[in-house]
C-alpha cells in the first residue's frame, strides 16, 4: 500500500470555556440545553480532518503517532486499505448521484428511502449511514421509518433516526455529495477487511481470486483461525486514565473518541476537539463519523493494529461471533471497539432511566470459563452529572457480555465500529 501523505499537526486554538472544567454536581437540564445551543452554533460545521481526508482518501493523521498505549503489545499485522478500482468509482458515482432524490423527497418514508442508499463493492453491500450490511435498502429504510424514534427520554449523544434524517434533509447538495463520496470511498478501500471479517468471524468463504486482488489483507489469512480457544482467558488494552465522563449530555461520541484518541496518541485532547472532528451537534454523533475519525486521527487503522475501521451491521451475528470480533480486536489488533448500544435499563439495570442510543469504548474481554463471558468497556455516560437521581459510578466497567450484545442488537442501526 503506498504511503499516504500525513497532514501537518492541526492545533485548535479555540477552546470552549467550559470544556473539561469541573462542574457543579446538579445541573439543571435547562442550563444544559442553553449551553448545548450555544455550542452547536459554534461547533456544528463539519471540520475537515486533514488534506488527505479532504480528497476523500484515507490517511492516517499527522497526529497519529507511533506511540502505543502503555498496555499495548506488538500486535500481529492486521489488514491495510485497498485500492479504489474503476468499478468502485463507478458505483460510488451512481450512489452519490442518486442522492439527488433527497432534494425531492417529501415526508418521512420518502426521506428515509432516499437517504438509505447502498453501494455494492466486490459483492459486499455498504449502505450510507448504516455501514456494511446484508440487509436490503428497504429493510434499512424501514428501520428509519417504522421503528420508534426513541423509547427513551434521556439522550446521551448518539444520532438517532430523526437526527440522521434531519441531517440528510438539511445538507446542501454540495455538502451531501462531498460527505457521501468520502464515506463511500473509505468503505470501498475497506472491502478487503470486510471480506476477511465475514470469512474469519462468520465463516463466509472468500471469493475466487481474493488473495490476488487484496494483497493488503491476505497475508493475514492464516494468522489466527481458531478463535476462542486460542485466545487467553482475558485481555485488555488502554489505560483506565483515558476513561472520562462526557461533559455534555450529547457528547458520548466525542468522549468515546477522546478515549480512543488518547490511547493512540498518548495525550489527551479535549472533548470539544473531538466534537468538532466528528461533526457532533446537539442531535448527537453518527457512528460513521466516529469510524471516520478513528481512521483519520489515530493509528488504530494502520496495519499494525486493526486496519481501516469499518461500520458493520451485526444483526446477523450470533453472540459468539460478536464476542470473537471483540476478542480479535482487543487481543490481536490491540485496538478498541466502538460499541453502539441502546442504553436501556433492561440492559443496564443500574440506570435510573432509559436512555438513548449511545457510544462506549470496548477495551477488554474475560472469557470467564466458570461463569459467563465478560466485556470490558469505558462508559462515558455519567448521569449523575446531569441528574440528581443517579449516583456516580466508575467509568471503567466489566460486565456480562451477552447483555452488551443484546444492547447492541436493540439499537435501531444494529451496528458496531471495528
Amino acid at each position, binding site marked *: 500500500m503506498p504511503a499516504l501523505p500525513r497532514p501537518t499537526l492541526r492545533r485548535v486554538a479555540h477552546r470552549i470555556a467550559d470544556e473539561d472544567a469541573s462542574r457543579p*454536581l446538579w445541573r439543571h437540564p*435547562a442550563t444544559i440545553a442553553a449551553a448545548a445551543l450555544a455550542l452547536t452554533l459554534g461547533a456544528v460545521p463539519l471540520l475537515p480532518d486533514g488534506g488527505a481526508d479532504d480528497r476523500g482518501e484515507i490517511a492516517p493523521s499527522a497526529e497519529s503517532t507511533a506511540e502505543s498505549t502503555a498496555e499495548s503489545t506488538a500486535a500481529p499485522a492486521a489488514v491495510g486499505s485497498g485500492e479504489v478500482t474503476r468499478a468502485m468509482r463507478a458505483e460510488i458515482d451512481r450512489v452519490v448521484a442518486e442522492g439527488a432524490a433527497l432534494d425531492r423527497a417529501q415526508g418521512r418514508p420518502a426521506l428515509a428511502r432516499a437517504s438509505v442508499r447502498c453501494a455494492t463493492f466486490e459483492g459486499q453491500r455498504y449502505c450510507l449511514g448504516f455501514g456494511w450490511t446484508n440487509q436490503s435498502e428497504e429493510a434499512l429504510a424501514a428501520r428509519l421509518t417504522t421503528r420508534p424514534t426513541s423509547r427513551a427520554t434521556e439522550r446521551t449523544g448518539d444520532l438517532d433516526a430523526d437526527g440522521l434524517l434531519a441531517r440528510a434533509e438539511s445538507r446542501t447538495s454540495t455538502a451531501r455529495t462531498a460527505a457521501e463520496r468520502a464515506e463511500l470511498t473509505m468503505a470501498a478501500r475497506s472491502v478487503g477487511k470486510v471480506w476477511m471479517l465475514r470469512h474469519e468471524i462468520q465463516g463466509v468463504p472468500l471469493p475466487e481470486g481474493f488473495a490476488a486482488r487484496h494483497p493488503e489483507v491476505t497475508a493475514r489469512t492464516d494468522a489466527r483461525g481458531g478463535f476462542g480457544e486460542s485466545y487467553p482467558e482475558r485481555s485488555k488494552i488502554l489505560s483506565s486514565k483515558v476513561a472520562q465522563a462526557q461533559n455534555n449530555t450529547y457528547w458520548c461520541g466525542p468522549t468515546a473518541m477522546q478515549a480512543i484518541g488518547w490511547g493512540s496518541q498518548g495525550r489527551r485532547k479535549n472533548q470539544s476537539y473531538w466534537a468538532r472532528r466528528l461533526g457532533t451537534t446537539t442531535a448527537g454523533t453518527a457512528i460513521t463519523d466516529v469510524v471516520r475519525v478513528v481512521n483519520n486521527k489515530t493509528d488504530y487503522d494502520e496495519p499494525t493494529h486493526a486496519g481501516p475501521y469499518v461500520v458493520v451491521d451485526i444483526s446477523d451475528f450470533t453472540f459468539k461471533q460478536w464476542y470473537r470480533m471483540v476478542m480479535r480486536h482487543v487481543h490481536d489488533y490491540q485496538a478498541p471497539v466502538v460499541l453502539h448500544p441502546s442504553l436501556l435499563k*433492561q440492559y443496564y*439495570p443500574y440506570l*435510573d432511566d432509559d436512555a438513548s442510543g449511545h457510544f462506549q469504548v470496548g477495551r477488554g474481554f474475560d472469557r470467564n470459563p466458570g461463569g459467563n463471558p465478560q466485556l470490558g468497556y469505558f462508559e462515558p455516560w455519567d448521569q449523575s452529572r446531569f441528574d440528581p437521581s443517579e449516583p*456516580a*459510578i466508575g467509568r471503567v466497567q466489566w460486565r456480562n457480555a*451477552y447483555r452488551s450484545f443484546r444492547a447492541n442488537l436493540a439499537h435501531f442501526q444494529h451496528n458496531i465500529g471495528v
Partner: protein
Amino acid sequence: MLVRTTAGLALLLALAGCAGGDEPDPGDEPGDGPSRAATSTDEPTTDLPSGGTVGDPAVAEPVTAVLQWQDTGVPADVRYVKGPRWEALADPGNTRVDLQADGMAASVVAGRGRTISEVLMSEDWAVVVRQDKAETAPSEVAVVDLASGAKGTVTTPPAASGGSWALTAGDLHYPTYGDGGAYCLATAALADSNGEDGWCAPDRSGFSGLTASEHGVGLMTFDDARPVACRTVNLLDAGGVPQPLEGPTDCTAWDVAATADGAVWSEVPKPRRQEEARFHAAADGTYFDLGPGTTGTAVPCGDSVFFVRDPQGPDEPARLMRWTPERTLEVAYESPSTGNAFLGEPACGGGVLTLASYGEEGDEHVWASVS
C-alpha cells in the same frame, strides 16, 4: 421546614460515615458493621431460622420453588405490567399505555413532547408517568382508579423529571423539587389526591432506588464523591425520614427493600463491576447472605422481596430469587437459556410479578401471581 431540617441532619449523619472514604478496593470484602438492623423492632420469632452476625452472616441456600409463570404474549422489550385484574401495555415507542380489565379499559397518551417513563400498578391503582422529552418540564402523572376505571392526575407537588418512583396500595412515592431546588421525596395519597413533599436530600446529595411495600419504603441516598459516589441504603421511618440500615458496608450499598422483619439490601463490592452485587437480608437483628445478584433489580412483591441473578456458569440459567417471610431463599424463575442469558428488572403489580427473560435460546415475557 422542621421535617426537612431533621431529615437533613439525619442524612448528614448517615453520610458522615462515608465522608473522606476512598473508593472501595475492588477486592475488598464487606466489613463488619453494626450488629443489628436499624428497622427491626420485633422480637425474633423462634420457629424461623436465625441468621448470623453482620460479619458472619448465615448463608441462605436457595431451594427451587418456581412460580406458576404464564406467557404475557408481549415481546420482552415492550413495557408491560400485569396486576390481579388489570394489565397495562405500552406501545413500542412508549407513546401510550392501554390498560384493560374485564369490561373496562383506559388509555393514557404521552402527548406531544413527552414519553411514558413509568407504569406502576397496585391492586387498586395504576400510575402512568409522562415525562418531558426535553427534561425541563415536570413529569405529568396520570392515575387510574382500578375499581372504576376513572382517570385522574397528581399535580401537587409537581414531579421532577425522571428519577425513581414507587407505588404501594394507594400511596405514590416520587421525586419532586422543593425550596431552593432541593431534590425531595413526595408522597401522594391517590384516593384523595393529597400529595405533599417530605424529606429533601441535603445539598450535594441525592436519592434513587425507591421501593415500597406494606412493610415500608426503601431508598438509596448518595453523595457527590468521585469517581464513585458513597451510597447508603435507608428505610423511611414513621416521620418519612430516611434511616440508614445497619449492616451494609459503608458506601457500597445499592438496592434496598423493607421486609416484615427487617430488610433486603445489596452491596457492590467491586466498583468496576457495577452490575455484580451481593445481596443480604436483615431479619430481627440477624443477618443472611443471599448470594450474588444483579444491581438494581430488588423488588418487593406480595409477601416477599425478589432480585435477579445472572447465570453463575455456562450451564446455569438466569434466575429470579425470592426472599420469603419464612426466611427462605427460593428460586422463583429460571430462564430457558443457560450461560448467555439475563433477566430484566421485575415489575410488581399488586402481588403479580412480570418478568422479561433474554437469552440465546429465545426471550420470554411472563407473569406469575406471588401469593
